[in-house]
């Protein structure tokens, strides 16, 4: 082995080390810590796309009824049967006309006749998955907007899987520790509606007090609510701190909804309490003006996600600007509501499938424990190698240190995440990396026992151990890669450090360790006794 050759190899090693130092500087920013180490919230949610399909069917039912009505083909009943719309009571003679009209104007439905004077409409599969896909995308956008405004550094908000049927969303919020608020913030649909209150007959608006059960409300209307009204709950807290629910009779239709909002901000009401002010679009502002002008003195309920916030009296004509108050808001809840209104309503509800919250203090504990254990393990391993192999143990120590350097440098360049099991993976790598050295050193000892010269023993030791080192590392890598493919979150971090550690080990234990021996041989060509 010529000295020139050794110099080239030393230069390669120096280059690799310099690259790793460069990649790792500054350490705090280059090594990406997992949520289990730095604290934060991980949530896996499913968008209830069935909700979106049902909403679409409801909307279509109304449009189809109108279209049929224009041609004098109006059905007497429309029923929702699972994911199909059933139009019943059509004029038997004109069923074919209706069929043709539906086929031409509503191509997203497959139409089939279902008994006399009845048609059954089902969404075509591509259109249905289109609706689901759109719902997930819109939910993703809405959640993203809400999180962005929540002010979290580097959140992850991703759709899990590919294709229109992937209905899961992953949200990761580093550094956030109050899951309750986050769940409220991203989980609630935030669908806002304004509805007029229907005062029961025989009572004035001033006299009307909503009852605390729906039966009493039905009774006030003489047995049942009118067809165009519904009962919605309001949760109130009495002066004594007791909570109870009131039921308000309101119109089914909502003249103004959250879709008409242009902006919403936290504000203060007349008494200095928290409230939310809003700005409507120009078009909705005109409708609002009309509504408030025609219904002076009546009550207008503000409904959020089917629950009444408050039902103030219309005392003035209101156009684009207004305020939502009387909802027992705190500064935070008013801020959150304004934020949710600005980001728009979720198209469908969310199911939380998995949630992991790690407090930053717990994460800090984990880092402390993981690093302490790794350092203790490494020190004992290195001490052992130094005692057992003496001079050659120094070789191991250097190679091991460079191995960890390369491992961290590779993690930085791959932007992979270091987790608690990942730290365990590094500790394990230290233990296993020594294996390659042991294999070589034992072989060198054997060769020396057989009377070979130091130079020949080193050369043949490395040669004979090489296939074994490659074989053994490759099989461990197979297991690590299987884990990498399946693993999620922290466990994936383990697979990452283990895999990179194994690959780095092949480089350090074979190439670097050999180079260090060659340097020794070049410095002392007449070396007769190797310290091993």
């Amino acid at each position, binding site marked *: 082995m010529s000295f020139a050759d050794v110099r080239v190899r030393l230069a390669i090693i120096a280059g690799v080390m310099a690259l790793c130092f460069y990649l790792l500087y500054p350490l705090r920013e280059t090594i990406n810590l997992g949520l289990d180490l730095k604290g934060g919230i991980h949530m896996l949610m499913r968008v209830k796309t069935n909700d979106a399909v049902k909403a679409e069917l409801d909307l279509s039912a109304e449009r189809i009824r109108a279209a049929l009505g224009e041609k004098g083909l109006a059905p007497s009943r429309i029923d929702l049967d699972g994911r199909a719309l059933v139009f019943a009571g059509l004029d038997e003679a004109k069923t074919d006309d209706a069929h043709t009209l539906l086929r031409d104007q509503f191509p997203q439905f497959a139409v089939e006749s279902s008994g006399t004077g009845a048609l059954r409409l089902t969404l075509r599969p591509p259109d249905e998955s289109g609706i689901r896909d759109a719902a997930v995308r819109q939910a993703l956008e809405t959640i993203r907007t809400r999180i962005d405004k*929540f002010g*979290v550094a580097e959140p992850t908000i991703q759709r899990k899987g590919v294709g229109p049927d992937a209905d899961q969303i992953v949200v990761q919020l580093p*550094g*956030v*520790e*109050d*899951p309750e608020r986050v*769940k409220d913030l991203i*989980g609630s649909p935030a669908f806002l509606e304004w509805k007029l209150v229907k005062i029961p007959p025989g009572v004035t608006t001033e006299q009307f007090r909503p009852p605390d059960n729906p039966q009493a409300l039905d009774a006030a209307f003489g047995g049942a609510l009118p067809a165009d009204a519904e009962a919605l709950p309001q949760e109130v807290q009495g002066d004594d701190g007791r909570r109870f629910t009131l039921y308000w009779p309101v119109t089914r239709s909502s003249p103004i909804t959250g879709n008409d909002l242009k902006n919403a901000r936290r504000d203060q009401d007349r008494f200095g309490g928290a409230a939310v002010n809003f700005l409507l679009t120009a078009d909705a502002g005109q409708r609002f003006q009309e509504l408030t002008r025609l219904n002076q003195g009546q009550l207008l309920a503000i409904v959020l996600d089917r629950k009444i916030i408050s039902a103030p009296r219309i005392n003035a004509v209101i156009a684009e600007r207004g305020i939502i108050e009387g909802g027992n808001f705190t500064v*935070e809840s008013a801020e959150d509501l304004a934020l949710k209104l600005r980001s728009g309503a979720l198209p469908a509800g969310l*199911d*939380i*499938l998995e*949630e992991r*919250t790690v*407090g*930053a*203090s*717990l994460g800090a*504990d*984990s880092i*402390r*424990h*993981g690093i302490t*254990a*790794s350092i*203790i*393990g490494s020190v004992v391993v290195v001490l052992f*190698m130094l*005692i*057992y192999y003496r001079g050659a143990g120094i070789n191991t120590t250097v190679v091991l240190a460079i191995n960890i350097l390369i491992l961290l440098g590779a993690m930085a360049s791959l932007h992979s995440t270091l987790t608690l*099991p990942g730290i*365990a993976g590094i*500790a*394990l790598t230290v*233990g296993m990396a*020594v294996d390659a050295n*042991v*294999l070589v050193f*034992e072989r060198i*000892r054997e060769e020396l026992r057989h009377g070979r010269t130091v130079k020949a023993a080193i050369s043949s030791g490395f040669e004979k151990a090489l296939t*074994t080192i490659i*074989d*053994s590392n*490759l*099989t*461990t*890598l*197979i*297991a690590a*890669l*299987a*884990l990498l*493919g*399946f693993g*999620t*979150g*922290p*466990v994936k971090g383990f697979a990452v450090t*283990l895999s990179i550690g194994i690959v780095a080990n092949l480089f350090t234990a074979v190439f670097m360790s050999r180079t260090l021996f060659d340097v020794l041989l070049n410095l002392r060509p007449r070396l007769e006794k190797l310290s091993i």
Partner: protein
Amino acid sequence: MLQVFHNANFKFMWASKWYFLALSGVALLAAFGIIIIKGFNYGIDFAGGTAVQVRFSQPPRLDALRVVLEGAGLGDVTLQSIGEAADNEVLIRVERTGMSEGAGGEGGDVSQKVLGALRGMQDGEAGVRDRLDLNTVSEPALREFLAGHLPASPDLAPPDAGTADPGLAAESIIRARNDRNGLFTDIGQVAGIPGVTGPVAAILRERATLGGFSLRGIDFVGPTAGKELMRNTGWAILGSVLGILVYVWFRFHRIAWGLASIIALVHDVTIAAGAMALTGKEFSLPIVAALLTILGYSINDTIVLFDRIRENLRLYRDVDFEKVVNASVNQTLSRTILTSFTVFVAVFALFLYGGDKLNPMSFCLLVGLVSGTYSTIYIAAALLVVTHQVLGPRYAKA
């Protein structure tokens, strides 16, 4: 020169291989039996449900806690003290409740109920309700709270009172809280933090409180996610076993060699899993990682030996097969013991000092390491010799 063995020449094969094969068989059956009869202590990852970890400022009374939690309609609640007694730390585990899918989440609100109940316990103290709890608030929420309550225009404040930057104050308060293991015990501690200026401290004194607990972590896994994790685990183990089988077969050209090493692998993984069932340590996702690592480590050890056997079979063509195998075991013995020792040391450090979270994983690894070292000699090598004796050299020679 330090040496573990000086020209080791132990008789691993011949009669003793039968004793140890029998012993391995018994151990394997026992491990299977324990797994089937006793079962695993599945963690949240696989069992599903909710686990909430909290640290209290005062030593918690578990019985009182249980009454409160069960009163909140949480059903069966398991309470477990973790860490050292002085940590006042409790893991609250709620099994999956009867909540149906689609009805307002699979149960993501269980953790909310737990926190609500814990908060309810301290609401009895006067004036605590409606105040900001500095022990559970997160940084963005605290920043917003301060921004909402600080005087709107900073130029009204006297210049030397220090500018009250809500972002900076929130950051230093949360950092200080983490340094105190997540709990402030006295509001004076907050006022003393560098970065907390007079106005901030005044607002906190007036409108904030210190709750009796801090949230350390929440794990919730719904039935859907749990099933998926289970399925993935199965695939990962199956995939790596097949991958290893194919690799060994390809490398040594004889399926007998591949099968011998796979049987050793199955033994090691089963023994490690059996030890988990026996000790009742929590079986969660990192255990899967540990089992796969055992697979990798055990095959690594086996391959080192098989490589040497193959080399020796070529060198000594006329020597008896069993003698060659035994000699190979002896030649690699030093290396086997040394490597196992260093890996063992590294993992043992994790076991002792790695904390609660790494403890079950490192325990599983330790058992697997010992078993992996043993099985290389007494299962993989022994089975090669048995194959050679029973089926003839055609199947065993490489």
